[in-house]
């Protein structure tokens, strides 16, 4: 038998409500209270300090005529002289244009490809087929660029598998891996093989978070597969797409290094030189010195920062959260 509960209102507190006074805690009190959190954060802070902020501070040598053999304070400031030299260098602009070309290609072709792969994967019902497909498309991500380039040369190179097969039938050799005119396509193929599968994983996670009842409801309303994807799936993963897009735009001038460096000799520097290889060849192993390379790196960083701020702003205007908000 159920026990009847009293329906009488609780007795009112006779004393007036106490005003909660939040006293500002002293630093010592906060330290005493939060020290476990601070200890947990220490390794990350140390990592950031040593590998990010300390090196960032050294960007100052972009404004100096720096020599590692002088005490730091004896290096003379030269203002923007290294930037002037950088922008006057006839090989800088082609490297920048190549970088932008590859970045745009990556953004326009690879990003949608990863989304498309994720959608395709999401539509596979058989778990066995799905896991096999997933393994095939994302495992190449773990191959080094040396291996990827070698595989392409062995298969598509002038003395590679297909070339020799064609020659056996009286055909011509392929010059695909050494042709600057087709290098952009080659780069895209290498990206697609190596990284498209990896890129889809995060979208798959986003897809998994969409409520299945939405699909059921849409299906019962007569929405076909295409309509369900357009009206449920894509809006469902839109915040993730925007977030990744912004991050990608921020790093737009970092299109990679090894892939271009490894193929530089075969294809020629004109087609393969990007900002990272430019800095490497001009400054790290070249004769232009540390200040020149730092100026180029700083330029790249500033452009990346501007792009990420602009992209984030646009995301806010479009009603998306972006990567951060001021409030």
């Amino acid at each position, binding site marked *: 038998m159920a026990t009847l509960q009293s329906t009488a209102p609780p007795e009112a507190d006779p004393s007036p409500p106490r005003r909660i006074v939040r006293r500002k805690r002293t630093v010592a009190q906060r330290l005493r209270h939060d020290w476990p959190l601070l200890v947990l954060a220490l390794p990350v802070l140390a990592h950031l300090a040593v590998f990010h902020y300390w090196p960032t501070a050294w960007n100052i040598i972009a404004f100096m*005529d*720096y*020599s*590692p*053999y*002088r*005490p730091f304070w*004896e290096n*003379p400031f*030269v*203002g923007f*002289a*290294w930037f*002037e*030299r950088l922008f*006057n*260098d*006839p*090989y800088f602009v082609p490297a920048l244009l190549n970088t932008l070309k590859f970045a745009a290609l990556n953004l326009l072709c690879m990003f949608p490809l990863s989304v498309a792969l994720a959608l395709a994967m999401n539509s596979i019902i058989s778990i066995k087929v799905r896991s096999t497909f997933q393994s095939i498309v994302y495992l190449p991500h773990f191959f080094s660029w040396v291996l990827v380039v070698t595989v392409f*040369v062995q298969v598509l*190179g*002038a*003395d590679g598998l297909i*070339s020799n097969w064609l*020659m056996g039938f009286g055909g011509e*050799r392929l*010059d695909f891996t*050494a042709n*600057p005119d087709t290098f952009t396509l080659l780069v895209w193929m290498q990206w697609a093989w190596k990284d498209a599968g990896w890129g889809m994983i995060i979208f798959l996670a986003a897809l998994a978070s969409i409520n299945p009842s939405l699909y059921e409801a849409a299906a019962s309303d007569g929405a076909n597969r295409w309509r369900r994807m357009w009206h449920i799936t894509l809006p469902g993963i839109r915040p993730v797409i925007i977030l990744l897009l912004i991050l990608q735009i921020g790093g737009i001038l970092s299109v990679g290094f090894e892939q271009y460096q490894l193929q530089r*000799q*075969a*294809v*020629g*520097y*004109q*087609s393969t030189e990007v900002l990272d290889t430019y800095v490497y*060849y*001009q400054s*790290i*192993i*070249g*004769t*232009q*010195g540390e*200040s020149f390379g730092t100026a180029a790196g700083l330029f790249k960083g500033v452009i990346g920062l501007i792009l990420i701020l602009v992209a984030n702003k646009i995301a806010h205007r479009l009603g998306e959260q972006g990567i951060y908000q001021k409030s």
Partner: protein
Amino acid sequence: MPVHSSNTPFKRRSLFKVAGLGAAGAAGLPVIAACSDIESGEGAVQSTEGFDFVPTYKEWPLPVQPDLVGELPNHPSGFTSYPEPVQAVTEPPSGSGTYELTVPVWGDTVSGDDPYFAAVTEAWGGTTVNLRQADGVTYADTSVQWLKANEYGDAILMFGWMLGSHSNFQETVVNNFYDLTDIVQGDIAERWPLLAGMPTSSWSQSVWSKDPADPDSARIFGIPGNFSGGVGNCVFVRTDYLEAANLAMPTTVEELLEVCRAWSDDANGKWAFAGLDWFIGQWFPAGDSEGWKWVEDEQKMYHVSELPEFTERLTFRRTLWDEKLIHPDAPSGTLDAHAMQAAGSVLFTQDSLGWWNEFARLVGTGEIEGAIAPLPALAPAGRTPSVTMNSSVDGWTFLNKDLSREQVEEFLDVANWCASPYGTTEYELLQYGIEGEHFTLGEDGTPVMTELGSTIVGGPMNYKALCGQVQTFLTGDPDVVQARFDYDASIQQYAKKNLFEGMRIEGPADYKAAASTLNDQENDIAYGRAELSSIPDMVQTFLDNGGEAAREYYTKAYKAVNGE
């Protein structure tokens, strides 16, 4: 205190006129930097003759005289027999230190566990020298950062041709390496008789100035490597294939091209070359030295790229590519030309002359069949060939400035032992390893490497280049030695004159960067990625970005050498 060479831009580029008394300050070179505030990377010129602080030369009598007597510097002597070796260092010093020496390695790195290393260590007195073996292909470039970061161990081996990768090697040397002057100057024959017996010119070429404008700041910073003399590089041809195809040895560039056309068969995997880039300049000799040519009539210095021979050599390379006379993967620069020539898929290799002995060894062990020989000095029909000769020491071992004087002296004990020449037990152990294990004596009495010996000791590096020998000779397979001696004799008349004799010139950084790009553009043309018609534009770009300024720099250097 670190020494930066860019404090006085005008004085810094002063030259030392090397005639007569040697280091004597000359007039300064003009400022080259494009941006007025930037003073670094403006080049350096160093006299390499006429110093009074190098070790006093005291002849170290050779235990045996060479069978073939040539004339240095361009015609080294040789041995066609193997003498009973004698001990050069009868009382090896006792050393207990451990040092790390960075060396370049081409091919597989070798394990330090092999008995060879223990035997050598014991023989030279117990000092342990561990090798840090780095990829020889990228060594020159990557050494730039090791040196700046002081991350090369206690010593580093650098070859002369590697210096061009450094933006300011003079500054690197004087700030990184131990100044040996106080230890090795004067009479050192009592403690280091073999080092005292090395040519004075070898020690003089190991001198750098802390301030190139001040002759008194010149000091010895490196232990000199071998002074080999003679010709170092050539193009080898498989002579057995030439005979089989009934082709004559080419004597002109035009004949060479015809041989390439007659032998190559792209469809069946046969090409004349696996690569041809750095050597071809000798067949179209435009520049005299360092890529520059002095035209007396015009009193003007020309860069090689401004001369018609530059276009000719690119045309030749392009013809090889267009007519499929060169391997289709040649642009990658990753082909193993030795293996391909041994296997018979390429006819020619551009190489060092060391390949001759190695090929003969492989034939002797039955691993391959055939024969190779260097092409004679070639030039286009009607022109006189020009052959580049070794005119300086091969390289140096530099010691870290952080070592103590006692440590440096111990290392010099080791170097003294390594300087033992052919005909000594030290040389035998160092160059061939342990008898019965790394080598055996063949029927003619000369050492024949075993497979283990070839792997461990046969490589170009390990301890063998730690220090130059008192005197170097042509050695190895007697037939090869004889052939090489004859070859050297045949090309003496074509020896190229060194415009900057007695000087080590380090070009300005801008010029080096522009020259590097020009080199990339040459490859673009050679491999069909750009047209021959683009040559004037790329030369103009080169001149605008450092080439023109360097012309003045090299002109001043030339005039200083020639007393104008």
